[in-house]
């Protein structure tokens, strides 16, 4: 049994709004743990549009997605939050009361938290691999169709088909090539987004006859009990044929899915979490939802709305964490106590 992490606040999602919640909580002396399925902070800003300009962040005529994330990370540094990357909250159980909430939270990596409050800042949900809409693919998933490599050894001696043209597809082609019996890389065109040196390495292997490159798309899967025997391929020349193989790895990027949040006993409205507009609390006392994942009359899915929601939710979190503390509202411009927390006084 792993040690249980006891904390005041768990923030689900390390996008811009989750990051700013750390700041608002920090000013109130509340330490936070952040959990995100991605290997880095920033959520959609970092994953979907790191280089794209954002024009509606107050005080920034223009900032890129990654620029905003970098600034937020700097802004919350004084509060030294703990990040749990590459993990998804799987189970949530209430072990307190509505006056004194307490939750046990477990991630898919087995990390367990006991926390007084939970702030869901999960945006559009968790990023998960896109699954090709090939009929019957579910039966093969995690048996012979994989969206990630957990153990390279399990590919030893197998005939592996990798589908895609980005870095993941090329990296795994090159990494699995010495292990697999035969690697085939399939892509819809003879142009690759992946880093040029990996593309060159792949082309050298193809030229040396050590692997195959196929231009086409996957249209069907054949096999029994989740074990593949062949993949039906529609070649770019129009021909349709079966390619014998044991393992397929499709790399088509990520998509956002609500995921296990749907099973936490929260009211949901079209995959969004309804909240009040005073505390941004859900129907479960102690669980808050801020940013793109929540809904209320007049909701706008803007980063700036999420920042506002973080500030107000933090006030109510404060009441749960420090029920007896007198609430004094202060400004960072003038309060020496806040400035001390920020490390500037």
């Amino acid at each position: 049994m792993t040690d249980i992490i006891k904390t005041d606040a768990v923030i689900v999602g390390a996008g811009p709004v989750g990051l700013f919640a750390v700041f608002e909580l920090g000013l109130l002396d509340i330490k936070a743990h952040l959990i995100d399925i991605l290997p880095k902070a920033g959520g959609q800003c970092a994953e979907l549009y790191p280089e794209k300009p954002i024009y509606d962040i107050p005080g920034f005529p223009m900032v890129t997605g990654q620029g905003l994330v970098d600034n937020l990370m700097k802004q919350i540094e004084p509060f030294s939050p703990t990040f749990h990357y590459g993990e998804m909250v799987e189970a949530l159980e209430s072990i307190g009361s509505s006056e004194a909430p307490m939750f046990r939270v477990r991630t898919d990596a087995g990390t367990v938290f006991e926390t007084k409050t939970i702030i869901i800042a999960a945006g559009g949900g968790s990023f998960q691999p896109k699954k090709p809409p090939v009929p019957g693919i579910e039966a093969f998933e995690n048996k012979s169709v994989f969206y990630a490599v957990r153990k390279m050894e399990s590919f030893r001696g197998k005939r592996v088909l990798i589908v895609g043209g980005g870095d993941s597809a090329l990296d795994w082609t090159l990494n699995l090539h010495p292990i697999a019996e035969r690697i085939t890389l399939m892509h819809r065109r003879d142009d690759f987004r992946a880093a040029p040196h990996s593309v060159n390495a792949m082309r050298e292997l193809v030229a040396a006859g050590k692997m195959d490159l196929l231009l086409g798309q996957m249209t069907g899967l054949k096999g029994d009990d989740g074990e593949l025997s062949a993949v039906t391929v529609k070649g770019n020349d129009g021909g349709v044929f079966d390619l014998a193989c044991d393992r397929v790895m499709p790399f088509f990027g990520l998509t956002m899915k609500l995921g296990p949040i749907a099973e936490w006993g929260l009211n949901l409205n079209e995959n969004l979490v309804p909240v009040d507009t005073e505390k941004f609390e859900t129907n479960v006392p102690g669980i808050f939802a801020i940013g793109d994942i929540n809904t209320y009359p007049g909701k706008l899915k803007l980063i700036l709305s999420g920042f506002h929601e973080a500030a107000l939710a933090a006030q109510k979190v404060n009441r749960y964490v420090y029920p007896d503390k007198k609430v004094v509202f202060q400004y960072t411009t003038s309060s020496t106590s806040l400035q001390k927390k920020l490390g500037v006084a």
Partner: protein
Amino acid sequence: MVKITFVDAGGQARTVEADEGSTVMEAAIRNDIPGIDAECGGACSCATCHVYVDEAFLDKLPKAEPMEEDMLDFAFDVRTNSRLSCQIKVSQAIEGIVVTTPEAQG
């Protein structure tokens, strides 16, 4: 205003009107056209607004930029008339355009 016809994977057609300068994706979202997710909100970063453009209108569209071609790698069942609807600007030149939405954006 420019007319756009969306045909779903089952063949059901719906015609909507869109402002010049907006995008075909925005017209789809505004009119609740099924089959277009547009997860990234039009940043050409997700390929969940993939459509098939009617052959008669293909020549009227500017060729896809390399970034759009790259993003199409994330779409499924990509054909020669595949485009990302967030990258199709609405103008008089495409009045009456017909696009078919795929069964799922994956």
